[in-house]
């Protein structure tokens, strides 16, 4: 098994293209005694879907939280769009062009679709010193954003409470993609969805990629990862143990890397 799959001569984490959109180098983060991330290096290219896989507790979510500004790495560096970044808050990450689609917590159910799409990015017009919401403009723009969805289009005036799980996820993704984002991070975007809804969200992800968006995708679903991604990073026990071009790997190898049945690309790793 180990012999049949060709190991790349240069590990992917050392093979960073000069125009990589995201380049994470040697990032470590500890919560007290718990070393959640240890010397993690990975990158994501423009216009590609980059998957991060790994067991529960492997550090996937912690890693993307570092990238999206929720956590601050203790060590290491993150380069985004050619510049070194030190995000202190999700807002800073967002203004740099990194949008995150969280699993379930991202929408306010009692607000309408358009209010959610524009939450904290409301369009206002000034009437003297007073800035009032331009509801018409936001509704119109929301209509435009939502109508591009492959998912059965929700009414922008409907409260999110009324939407199905797939519609909600679509609204979240739509919000992430709709503003001038360069990178969209999706944490298990289909975890809570049924089969049909998952298929629709996958279509949406593919379409975003085709439109030129770069996406970092966390997923437990290997079929989904193999279908959607261009590159895969495998995390295990807080380390990023291997990276592969998706075309050059298969499900068996990824599973073996996740479980540790197969050693990764790291020289010092005890297999």
């Amino acid at each position, binding site marked *: 098994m180990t012999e049949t799959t060709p190991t790349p001569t240069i590990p992917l984490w050392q093979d960073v293209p000069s125009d990589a959109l995201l380049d994470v180098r040697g990032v470590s983060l500890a919560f007290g005694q718990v070393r959640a991330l240890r010397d993690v290096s990975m990158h994501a290219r423009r216009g590609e879907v980059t998957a991060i896989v790994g067991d529960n507790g492997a550090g996937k979510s912690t890693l993307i939280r570092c990238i999206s500004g929720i956590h601050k790495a203790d060590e290491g560096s993150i380069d985004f769009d050619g510049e070194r970044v030190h995000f202190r808050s999700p807002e800073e990450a967002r203004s740099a062009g990194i949008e995150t689609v969280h699993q379930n917590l*991202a*929408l306010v159910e009692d607000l309408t679709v358009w209010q959610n799409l524009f939450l904290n990015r409301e369009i206002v017009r000034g009437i003297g010193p007073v800035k009032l919401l331009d509801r018409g403009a936001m509704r119109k723009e929301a209509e435009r954003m939502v109508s591009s969805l492959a998912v059965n289009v929700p009414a922008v005036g409907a409260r999110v409470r009324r939407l199905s799980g797939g519609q909600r996820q679509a609204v979240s993704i739509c919000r992430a993609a709709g503003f001038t984002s360069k990178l969209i991070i999706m944490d298990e975007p289909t975890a809570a969805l049924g089969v049909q809804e998952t298929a629709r969200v996958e279509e949406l992800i593919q379409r975003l990629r085709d439109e030129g968006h770069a996406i970092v995708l966390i997923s437990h679903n290997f079929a989904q990862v193999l279908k959607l991604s261009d590159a895969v990073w495998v995390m295990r026990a807080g380390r990023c143990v291997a990276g592969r071009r998706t075309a050059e790997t298969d499900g068996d190898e990824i599973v073996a890397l996740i479980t540790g049945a197969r050693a990764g690309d790291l020289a010092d790793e005890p297999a």
Partner: protein
Amino acid sequence: MTETSTRETASGGSTSRGAGAAPHTPARPSRAAGLRDLSNWADWAALVGLIVLVVIFQSLNSTFLSPGNIQSMLVASAILIVLAIGQTFVVATAGIDLSVASTMTLAAVVFGMVFTAGHGLPLSMAAAVVAGAMVGLVNGLLVARGRITDFIVTLGTLSAASGLALILSDGKPATIISAPLLKLSTGSIGIFGYSVIVALVIALIAHIVLFRTRFGTHVLATGGNAEAANATGVRTKRVKTWVYVISGVLAGIGSILLVARVGAAEPAANTAFLLNSVAAVVLGGVSLFGGRATIIGPVIGALLLTALVNGLTLLGVSQFYQPLSVGIVVVLAAFLTRFQK
């Protein structure tokens, strides 16, 4: 927008119910319609209640709807409207301000002190509002930054503010004699007393703030799902702090109306105002879990509570029955909100 959401309610409700029941019986739709009606009632509980009360009281005593009585009811409701609006902002973020009435008392006492010291009316009024804002700020900071439960924080300031009022005033009321203040409490345009006009202007501003500004959207988002609001970068702590400041400021404005009405600044407890402000908010269909609020609802709720007390008084019912009736009405309204969806 309301139309869309009700239509959504209708379709969402019927589909989920249809999915639950395997055989479709013809009786289903009508029952569903009945439930829908109930949920509509819940949104308009205060208005329906107000109309019912008006009809009952008017049929029992024809002076109830006389211009004079309407005017006095409106004047009597002004302070409660102002306090209930402040309470609405807090409740919209899933908080509660138990200190509104005590804050108003403290602000009234501060008003009295500044006025008695001879600083004039404008400065006294400003001092009252600032005093209210300060209490609100303390509440807000303790709740948002100190992460202490709103209930405990405002219970603490309830006691602290009324204690402070007693200390500052030495337990004695200060008589305030001022022509403009007298005018504020007695003057009117048509049947609308100046104090009611003040309250309605505040309600209008509050409505605009809640539904037409970024801050208002963030208030509802913070109450609806603080985590989600945070994830989009809404400063939920700041929002939580500000709603208590708003409540405090409105308690300060309420104290001006109170001093104008009573003609004195006294360190009285005003407990009824606290209970009624929460009651008006609940009657107004504002969700105590946060995220859903209107301004018109609590305003009508405040009118209803005032009409209830006024009507009972007109009918010669003993004062002792008033708290009981208010309690029953509030619990009924809370019961109706169970059907809110």
